[in-house]
């Protein structure tokens, strides 16, 4: 049973749609760019051991108010305010790609908020010699093989399918553009927004989890993250960029094994 609630902050300027399920220690999950809908088998599995909160980013899937946010700092403050509104003082923080960037920002700005931190192929650092793919703009036929290790996998096929019905098809395209537009606001044109200056503030034990065959966000970044977060562990799994969707059991096992 997934709870689906709206939580307003800043006198209604921003409303988060928060999906939640499970019981146990609180875990807040932050979504990536190409996650349609807010719930997934990965979260379903985590909800067996944790109380999972999965807020959708402002401007995505029923959360509103992105136009009132200026930058990543503003977004991070909004998430801090959301946790206060949810009554969650401290939680495990987990996020994929853009969501990993948000989780890391939150853990850096508010170290006391993060019990443990699990970053899955996080965005937010930049190396000129290994740029992450511009997956905000890749056309669908080029995007799929960058995101997924195996385009024949169930996850990739489900992700690629667009509704046949005209209205639903248009709505899906508009949703995709709106979702990417909302997230682009915080990472355009290069996702280096100063996080590297703040990562040393993180005190939570941290896992850097990556798919070995990540074609969107090169694995070399795993070392960059490890170098900047004291004591961080790195784990690679045989998967692609969308590891939490393509191999949800392996990804969830790795996260659970770390969070305890």
């Amino acid at each position, binding site marked *: 049973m997934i709870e689906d609630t709206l939580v307003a902050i800043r006198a209604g300027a921003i409303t988060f749609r928060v999906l939640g399920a499970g019981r146990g220690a609180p875990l807040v999950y932050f979504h990536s760019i190409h996650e349609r809908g807010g719930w997934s088998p990965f979260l379903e599995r985590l909800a067996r051991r944790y109380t999972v909160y999965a807020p959708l980013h402002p401007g995505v899937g029923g959360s509103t108010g992105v136009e009132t946010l200026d930058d990543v700092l503003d977004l991070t403050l909004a998430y801090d305010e959301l946790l206060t509104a949810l009554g969650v003082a401290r939680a495990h923080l987990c996020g994929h790609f853009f969501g990993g960037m948000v989780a890391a920002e939150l853990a850096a700005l508010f170290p006391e908020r993060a019990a443990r931190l699990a970053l899955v192929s996080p965005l937010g650092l930049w190396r000129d010699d290994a740029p992450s793919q*511009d997956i905000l703009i890749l*056309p669908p036929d080029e995007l799929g093989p960058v995101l997924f290790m195996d385009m024949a996998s169930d996850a990739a096929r489900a992700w690629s399918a667009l509704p046949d019905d005209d209205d639903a098809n248009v709505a899906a395209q508009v949703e995709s*553009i709106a979702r990417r537009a909302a997230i682009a*606001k915080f990472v*355009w044109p290069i996702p280096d927004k100063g996080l590297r200056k703040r990562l040393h503030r993180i005190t939570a034990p941290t896992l850097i989890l990556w798919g070995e065959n990540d074609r969107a966000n090169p694995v070399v970044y795993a070392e960059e993250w490890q170098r900047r977060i004291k004591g961080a562990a790195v784990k690679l799994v045989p998967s692609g960029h969308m590891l939490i969707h393509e191999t949800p059991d392996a990804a969830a096992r790795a996260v659970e094994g770390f969070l305890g």
Partner: protein
Amino acid sequence: MKICFFHLMPYRFLPDDFEARYRSVWVDVPHSLYDPEKTSQLYHEFLDELEFAEQAGFDGLCVNEHHNNAYGLMPSPNLMAATLTRRTSRAAIIVLGNSLAAYNPPLRVAEEFAMLDVLSAGRLVAGFPVGTSMDMNFAYGINPATLRERYYEAHDLVMQAWTRPEVFPFNGKYTQLRYVNIWPQPLQKPHPPVWIPGGGSVETWEWTAKLDYVYCNLSYYGYKRGKATMDGFWNAIGALGADDNPYRAGFLQLVCVADSDAEAERLYFPHVHYFYQKCLNVWEGFAEAPGYRTVKTLQLGIQRQVGAQAKQIRQSLNWAKYLDSGYVIAGGPATVRQQLLECIKSLRVGHLMVLLQIGSMPKDLTLHNTTLFTREVMPHLRDVWPGYKDRWWPAQCER
């Protein structure tokens, strides 16, 4: 009727297999394809063509701004406009325009346009485009989420810098200035005419109509497809209850004139084809950054000019299709006259802009096209809109 000569300044020497080998003419087009010595010659040919257009009788000369682009060698149209102030004396100099959000501080636009207005003795038309996604979001890295807001704020700053009599502070979200005080001020009072190039955004129709500026559709796809865009603007004017003076509107049309319809195909087809196949070969990923268009405009479903859909249409084009679809108005004088009158009347435009140098067209052919246009076509278009006053034209340039 005001009739203006528009120049894009395209690079004419892209390889024959360009569109097969390179994904985009814009944003990441390799500059190894570009030869500065050839371009030096090109610039002077293009300026010759613009200067010739004034002598041949055009009312205005139009230049525009593009970046990282092989069909628009004018990252700074102001430089071209400045040279034109020295070699022309009568025509309006129409800069379409400066993409306000790209300048930091945007006051630079107020200054340079004021310089151009003074240099030209009051012949400037000031164009303020939001700018294409390729130029603004990709080439200049401006965040698509805030482009429009930056643009509106920059517009307010420029207009205040031109019209407020005192030195004033400007406390914007994107620009903060303690002392706004531009020297020189524009010669035209209260300010040069303002034209807004637009591509079909609902917001731009409404905003342009409200501020009483000229709305221009700089389309490469002709008057038949441009009708939906211009109708959108006229509906916005209607909704405001403003008059339907055709001088509120401008439209760009590609035109080729020859002695006969058959001769037009022979002379112009390769250059037109170069334009559509090479110059408009834009990779779908660059066609539109997410957030460039608002959801409101997306839902209206106006087709993009470039990208995958456009590419499919483009690849099937031949001369008959260019003409039938109205992308290009081409043929003998009678054919061109008849179709341009249809264009002007159906879109209700008082400012017609024509593109006579198209794609790889060399100078001699461009001058031929220009001569035939001004001799055989232009006189027949002059009197389409009797009784309307053009309030958006430099007073210096009235015939």
